[in-house]
């Protein structure tokens, strides 16, 4: 088996990987030659660079299996989850360009600061407000029930920030809550066990609320879990529009 490895090593081809290096607003791309493998994710490439070329490279990941949402970066211009993006799928003319996620401040190199993203999650009332205590009976909710189905469609969010990076309104309007937070708010609007529906509808109706969304669906296009924040935001628009007429009365 030893010479099989040798043969692989002999035939080894390399790709050029341009990696963003820097802190805050300052930075530039640095090129690395990285050996190509048959099965290789973008995260593998970044890890290879850190372990074999430059140990000072900063980046973030945890689960490596598309669960934790911490590894998203801009790969050849598009936001992607790097642990589940195969290099072969995104390589462009033998070049891979990796940058931190857009629309977030850069901490260092490929690690973006996601705190604003999570703050907006809270600002959109993406937080459950219980209505019962542990002694109350648990309400029975039919899984086929319409509101429950709405929740199902939007619940599998891993907070990766990819939709947030793909949204031009986030880039243009610093107050905009963004697709993930609004998608989360929509699941809670449909949650019959939640007690803050009106407060939530008010929270998503301000200057940074759901009404700023232009429905161009960059979020839908890029969400790695195939969620549809645009549809969730449209749901919020409908519910707030209804409440608009109610509040007027």
């Amino acid at each position, binding site marked *: 088996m030893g010479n099989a490895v040798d043969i692989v090593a002999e035939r080894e081809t390399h790709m050029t990987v341009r990696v963003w290096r820097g802190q805050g607003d300052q930075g530039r791309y640095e090129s690395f030659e990285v050996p190509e493998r048959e099965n290789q994710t973008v995260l593998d490439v970044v890890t290879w660079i850190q372990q074999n070329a430059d140990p000072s490279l900063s980046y973030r990941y945890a689960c490596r299996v598309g669960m934790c949402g911490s590894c998203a970066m801009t790969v*050849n*211009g*598009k*936001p992607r989850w790097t642990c589940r993006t195969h290099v072969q799928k995104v390589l*462009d003319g033998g*070049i891979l*360009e990796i940058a931190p996620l*857009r629309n977030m401040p850069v901490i260092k190199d490929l690690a973006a600061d996601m705190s604003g993203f999570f703050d907006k999650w809270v600002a959109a009332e993406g937080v459950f407000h219980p209505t019962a205590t542990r002694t109350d009976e648990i309400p029975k909710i039919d899984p086929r029930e319409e509101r429950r189905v709405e929740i199902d469609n939007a619940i599998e969010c891993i907070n990766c920030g990819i939709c947030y*990076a*793909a949204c*031009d309104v986030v880039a243009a309007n610093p107050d905009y809550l963004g697709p993930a937070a609004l998608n989360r708010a929509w699941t809670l609007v449909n949650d019959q066990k939640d007690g803050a529906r009106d407060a939530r509808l008010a929270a998503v109706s301000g200057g940074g609320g759901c009404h700023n969304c*232009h*429905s*161009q*669906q*960059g979020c839908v*296009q*890029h969400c790695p879990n195939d969620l*549809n924040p*645009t*549809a969730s935001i*449209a749901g919020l*628009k*409908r519910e707030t*529009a209804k409440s608009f007429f109610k509040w007027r009365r």
Partner: protein
Amino acid sequence: MSLARTHRSHPLWYAYALHRVSGLLLALFLPLHFWVLSFALTDPARLDGFLHWADLPAVKLAEFGLVFLLAVHMFGGLRLIALEFLPWSGRQKAYAAAAAALAFLVAGLFLLRAV
């Protein structure tokens, strides 16, 4: 960015861009439109002057462009309102394409009648 592909490279982003650009151009055209029409009151000969100027082929072509902008902004806008207020449809790209095609048809009809 050395690579042409970005988060914007998808048809619905282009539809959004078209909606924004058409809306902006229409909003900029409106004052001119109103200003010329108000000559009916103050200076009818000047209004006629403008209308004859509009017979020039180049101006007719520009008018075709304006009709297209108006139609595409309306059809595209109806698509967005349907997206927001009707149950979700998975055929967003088809609808966006249909809005543009329909607008082109309407503007084409206008041009055919104009020449």
